[in-house]
């Protein structure tokens, strides 16, 4: 597994445990007669951590590892696009999730969502040329 995939998949596992921990707090609070008020505000962070932090980081990590190499002989490429996708996605998860949990100004979750979208676009741009049929070779010039 390449180093970047290791980072992505391990970050996904950290997000899984963190997201489940928040979910456990939220669910346990539903069993209380008077749940603490802050628990309800954790829900957006719980959702960001699991839907994007867990599932998307894992998808990025496995795709970066397992998609076919580029036909131009550069393997997985320089890794800049995928690395940027990883950084943007996780910065976005933190900004959007923590921003909503702390009721930060609306610009903070907005920036977070924009970073997540930019991360998705960066990963799509990286992966695009690696999605190809069996036996594809470089086009004759």
């Amino acid at each position, binding site marked *: *597994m390449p180093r970047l995939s290791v980072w992505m998949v*391990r970050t996904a596992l950290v997000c899984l445990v963190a997201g*489940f*921990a928040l979910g456990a707090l939220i*669910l*346990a609070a539903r069993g209380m007669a008077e749940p603490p008020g802050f628990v309800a505000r954790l829900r957006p962070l719980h959702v960001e951590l699991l839907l994007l932090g*867990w599932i998307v980081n894992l998808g990025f990590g496995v795709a970066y590892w397992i998609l076919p190499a580029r036909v131009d002989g550069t393997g997985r490429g320089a890794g800049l696009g995928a690395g940027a996708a990883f950084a943007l996605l996780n910065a976005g998860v933190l900004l959007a999730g923590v921003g909503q949990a702390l009721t930060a100004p609306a610009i903070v979750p907005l920036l977070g969502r924009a970073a997540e979208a930019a991360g998705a676009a960066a990963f799509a741009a990286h992966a695009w040329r690696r999605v190809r049929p069996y036996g594809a070779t470089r086009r004759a010039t």
Partner: protein
Amino acid sequence: MPPLTRWLVRTALVCFVAGLLLGVAMQVGAAREAFPLLAAAWPGYVHLLTVGWVTQLIMGVAFWLFPRTDRSRPAPPAWLGWTGYVLLNAGLLMRLAAEPAAMLDPATPLRNLLPLSALLQLAAACCFALLLWPRVRERAGDR
């Protein structure tokens, strides 16, 4: 496919079908009238699909396909995976049974199951993370 993967993937498939059937039932007015708990089943529906289906399927496939450990990094004990499997599904079932009842009737004793369900699912996530962590590793020459 290892036995743990088969159990995880088959249980994930059961959750997938059950979740979508629950979604159908939630949309049918006559069903909601006959079973008022369906009106409060939305969180259960979402978690049946995200935890029971997606997360469990990922765990099954990851346990099957992630790189094997070697002598320098021994594999975590297999019981960790089985414990995660049992805890996850027990916690999920407990939630499905208790949450709608607690939402409709805050005085129901079933409500006391929710913290336990929360704890079981969190423990399951920890088991799976510990099980997979040593297998997420760099291979020499693979950049």
